[in-house]
């Protein structure tokens, strides 16, 4: 007889939903349920995963407060538990959850602040890779330069939002929660978040700077990316900055990739 899969599926469902077995309800097959004992596991799952989310989304916690965050996290954990045993990475789906989460609709910028924190986490966790040696690029004939396709460094993330999420993220990150913010005029978000010598660094980009980098990161060739940035774009200066900021780790030439 195979009882173990049924027992584990039933117990996991109870623990995941975070509800004790009500009196009189038949417990999972084979388990002598003492509700207070089941609660020990339910509480551990909820509190340990909430702690992971708190450490990954510290600005969100500061902006909405600990109580609201714990409330949202509990709903998120029940709806989208981790799939990966590396739980320190849990929470990639929190921004999308917050966008759907009715009680958070009072904070329309919240999902994008969480997206910034996701990007900062990805940067901090990304493999250490050397930026490309500029001498290798200099050896590319000028007539082929437009066909260059860069391998973008995962330790350089781009985040955009129509809302001033970056302003709120910085206010929370720097502990300046009493700052008066003119939300109507604070402007949209276009951030480059990257690994710098002394930690994760975030920098605001202009619309053309962002468009150029987003195209390159998305796999467009240098020529296409420059066109997407629009008229008057200073390609040489922007390319130099992209390289100096370590955003590129390798390249191929379009049409020559295997």
């Amino acid at each position, binding site marked *: 007889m195979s009882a173990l899969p049924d027992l584990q599926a039933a*117990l996991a*469902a109870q623990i995941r939903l975070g509800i004790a077995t009500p009196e009189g309800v038949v417990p999972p097959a084979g388990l*002598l349920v003492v509700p207070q004992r089941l609660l020990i596991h339910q509480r551990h*799952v909820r509190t340990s995963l909430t702690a992971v989310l708190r450490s990954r989304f510290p600005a969100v916690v500061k902006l909405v407060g600990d109580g609201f965050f714990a409330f949202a996290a509990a709903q998120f954990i029940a709806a989208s*538990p981790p799939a990966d*045993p*590396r739980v320190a990475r*849990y929470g990639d789906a929190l921004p999308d959850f917050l966008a759907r989460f009715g009680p958070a609709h009072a904070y329309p910028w919240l999902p994008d602040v969480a997206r910034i924190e996701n990007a900062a986490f990805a940067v901090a966790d990304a493999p250490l890779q050397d930026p490309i040696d500029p001498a290798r690029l200099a050896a590319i004939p000028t007539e082929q330069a437009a066909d260059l396709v860069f391998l973008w460094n995962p330790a350089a993330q781009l985040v955009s939002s129509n809302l001033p999420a970056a302003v709120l993220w910085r206010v929370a990150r720097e502990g300046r929660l009493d700052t008066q913010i003119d939300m109507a005029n604070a402007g949209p978000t276009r951030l480059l978040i990257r690994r710098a010598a002394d930690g994760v660094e975030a920098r605001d980009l202009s619309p053309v700077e962002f468009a150029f980098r987003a195209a390159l990161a998305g796999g467009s060739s240098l020529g296409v990316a420059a066109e997407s940035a629009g008229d008057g774009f200073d390609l040489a200066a922007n390319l130099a900055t992209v390289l100096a900021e370590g955003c590129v780790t390798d390249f191929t030439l379009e049409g020559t990739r295997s």
Partner: protein
Amino acid sequence: MSPGKSNTPIVARAGIGLRAPHIDLVLASHPAAAWFEVHAENHMTDRPGDITPAFRALWSVRQDYPVSLHGVGLSLGGAEPLDDDHLARLKDLVLRIEPFAVSEHLAWCGAGGAFLNDLLPLPYTDEALCTVVRHVDAVQTALGRRLLVENPSAYLAFADPGMAEADFLAELVARSGCGLLCDLNNSHVSAHNLGGDARAWLRRLPAAAIGEIHLAGFVREDADGDSVLIDTHSTAVDGAVWDLYAEALSLFGPCPTLIEWDADIPDFRVLQDEAARADAIAAPFAAANDDVRAA
């Protein structure tokens, strides 16, 4: 990258569980510690050979200290198949860090694709034994080395509890060739919560299979007048667990012993003091062992 130092001979001394708040301190000041244990999941990389900051930190620690890798995510007792990707990541870490021990838990961690981040209990039935033996065998085959399996903390009882835990562990050792990580705090907590005798449990374990001992702290809670011990790893080792430690040493001899502290983590010095206390308790047994060898 491969560790610059070969495996320092592992003396049966007390090591320290190394968690994020102390990693920078250890790398900067090289404090005295016989060895460190880390949670493998915190240092795994997506792809074999990747060097992430978390991997690099562990690799750097490994230059100066023996390291043990303690997994918390394989779900050895899960009825579902092992997560092959996770096992591959563990294998990559083991190959690169060259730990002196690799351990996991006699527990399951989720079902239906949900990882619940808890070490959930098994009924000790023949079916569960076959499942765990199969999974331990797969892990040992993949890693090419012996795995130490840790006894869990228990809060729940099963209608069909199956065999006694110590007998289940002995049978697991006999069938899989694995070793045991004897967590004395867990055995104390389980005995209290389910009404057992931790000393009798110790005496029934296969002594030759013990590869490591864990010591940690718990908290006591009242659940409707029912006293329950919670394995929080958030306090100093309890007196009852220190007593069990002396008993274990008399049965097993000196053994690599870990001070585990995972929540409300204190100053590193407190962990060093706990390790020193464990070493002091173990010293007479080590001396006795030397006498036996000399004779």
